[in-house]
């Protein structure tokens, strides 16, 4: 069983409040190495400089949205294996289908609970300790 504390996470969302809420939820789950980026462009830059094990990304963002970030991650060999969880709204069924085509590992519908986010991450990594 993987330890949450050994998994590095990059949280990508243009809203500071949402980043803080996701960070807080991840800390409650046990994650310790948590980084943040306000848009896809900055996230990609950060990942290429220092890879992460998991990306949790919003979809609607300026500069580069979540889907474009997902495609960019999957097309850069050094980081293409990064686990990628997309945060979406309720009405974004089509977006999820596109994200699946581009290799998303899972998705989580906003607003989410801590347990809901944990379940989604555990579906990717297995049960966390």
């Amino acid at each position, binding site marked *: 069983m993987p330890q949450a504390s050994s998994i590095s996470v990059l949280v990508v969302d243009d809203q500071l*409040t949402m980043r803080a809420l996701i960070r807080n939820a991840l800390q409650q789950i046990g994650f310790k190495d948590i980084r943040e980026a306000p848009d896809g462009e900055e996230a990609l830059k950060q990942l290429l400089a220092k890879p992460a094990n998991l990306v949790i990304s919003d979809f609607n963002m300026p500069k580069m949205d979540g889907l474009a970030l997902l495609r960019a991650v999957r097309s850069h060999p050094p980081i293409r294996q990064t686990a990628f969880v997309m945060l979406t709204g*309720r009405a974004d069924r089509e977006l999820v289908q596109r994200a699946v085509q581009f290799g998303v590992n899972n998705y989580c519908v906003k607003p989410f609970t801590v347990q809901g986010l944990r379940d989604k991450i555990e579906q990717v990594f297995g049960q966390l300790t």
Partner: protein
Amino acid sequence: MMGQDLHQDDSGPTIKVHVTQGESHVSSDPNVVMTTVLGSCIAACLRDPTTGIGGMNHFLLPDAGDGRRNNGDAVRYGAYAMELLINGLLKKGARRDRLEAKIFGGGKLFDGLSDVGASNAAFAERFLRDEGIPIVSSSTGGLSARRVEFWPATGRVRQRLVAVDNAPVEVRRPVPIVPAVSNAGDLELF
């Protein structure tokens, strides 16, 4: 769904869009006026003054002010309600760095141990401050309900206080309308 009511008055055709709890609406149409009635709920009116694109939401945080339960879910819901409005504005062409806000509601319409309205207002103020969106005017708290009209194209707002006894029951004792959380997605990836 939002109610739309077309009617004629002295200034030309007006399109009234009523925004009820859990909804948000965005427009740049100069004929549109968004209306809502608030008790302890909050309506945030956000607008990009350069493009004249504006919008209103209407929300009530679940369990806000209730110290017995985890407030994290309430804040996550509130942040989501604000995000829906902001994303709607950005999709129409508004710029985030130009957005300004007017907030209304958060009244205390009946005696109780907790002041749900104050918690809602505090959330909205903190969210907007953290996101760097200036609050250019606000009317929150108090003991009355509010009828609010917002013209997104100009940013004009008209507010009327409504005596509690004259307010609709859903305004006097609102029940949070919260979308399903966590595993709400219906696409099975696993």
